[in-house]
């Protein structure tokens, strides 16, 4: 059965955007925290590797953080297009 009530549809879109983006940010949040924590651990163990580790950290940061935007994007797709 198709939902035709306009109010319900627009409410569902807002909920989809909010829930999707919020839940989508959990995973990358854990990932970024773990990543930076491990980098700090590595630097405190071997401070001479700081610049190398920092470069790798930023690389991983960009790859991980992008996943938040996939969720945000899907939320916008639901909100504006769906």
């Amino acid at each position, binding site marked *: 059965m198709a939902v035709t009530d306009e109010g319900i549809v627009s409410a569902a879109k807002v909920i989809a955007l909010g829930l999707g983006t919020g839940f989508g940010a959990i995973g990358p949040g854990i990932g970024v925290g773990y990543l930076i924590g491990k980098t700090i651990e590595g630097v405190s163990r071997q401070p001479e590797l700081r610049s190398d580790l920092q470069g790798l950290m930023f690389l991983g940061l*960009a790859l991980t953080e992008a996943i938040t935007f*996939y969720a945000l994007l899907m939320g916008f797709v639901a909100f504006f297009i769906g």
Partner: protein
Amino acid sequence: MIRRRLSLTLLTLAGLLVFPLAAFGSESEFQPVEEFINTYWASFMIGPIEIGISKAVVYLWLAVLIAVLLTLWIVRGGLRTDPKRTQNVVEVLYTFSETNIGQATLPKVAYVRWFPYVASLFVFIWVLNMISFIPLPLDTHNPFIGPIPGLTIYAVTSNLSVTLTLTLVTVMISHVEGVRANGVIPYFKSWVPPSPKALLPAMIILEVLSQLLRVVSLSVRLFANMLGGHLLIIMCVGFVILLGNVFIAPVTIPVAVAFYIFEWGLVASLQAYIFAMLSGIYIGSAIEPHH
């Protein structure tokens, strides 16, 4: 010197904060998505394909002009052995792409042929991302006054067509080079790592899927990052208009400025670097597969 730089930065930020005023002026509803809609200013058709000129095309031209002409202008008198400041910038950029992108990802056999591609990809996307945060008068949806278009911070890399095109070029190069270097059958065999016979069909499906998903992940990463970043800034500034409450500005405007600095200072460069580096990795791993 520092004061001049600081005032330049503040001027740019002030310019950014001015642009929602144009929305006030036009008395239309605030639509953050309007930033990303392309209207063709001049339309040319080749069959069903539209090759007209729009905001995105102008941005692409601008980036090409900046990347090529600025470099040519800096090295106009030939390169010096005792580099001056402007030459230093070019040298740093070149050394960075050489060591961190070229040598880090491409195998030695393919370095000479594909380093220029990967490096120009980096510089092109970097310039695209950098100019996308400078307010330029190209917003014809919300004219500033009369025929003068409003200021906008549009990122052409937040247009999926642009990133998908760049990705498809990279992926096609990687497959062609992989076939050329290894032969057709060994190349496609090299996709699948050695695995027990029972798992082989599942492995083949997974590996083919991962090859196809490269196209999606590479293009959508850049696209979603720039789109998300720009929307975040525009929404933070636009909250004043959306909620119709000026007193919220002391909270939202600093957040917008913080995101602006974060996006411009870090994400724009990082995403260009990631895109070029992953392109290099894909091309390199196709030429010299790990067995």
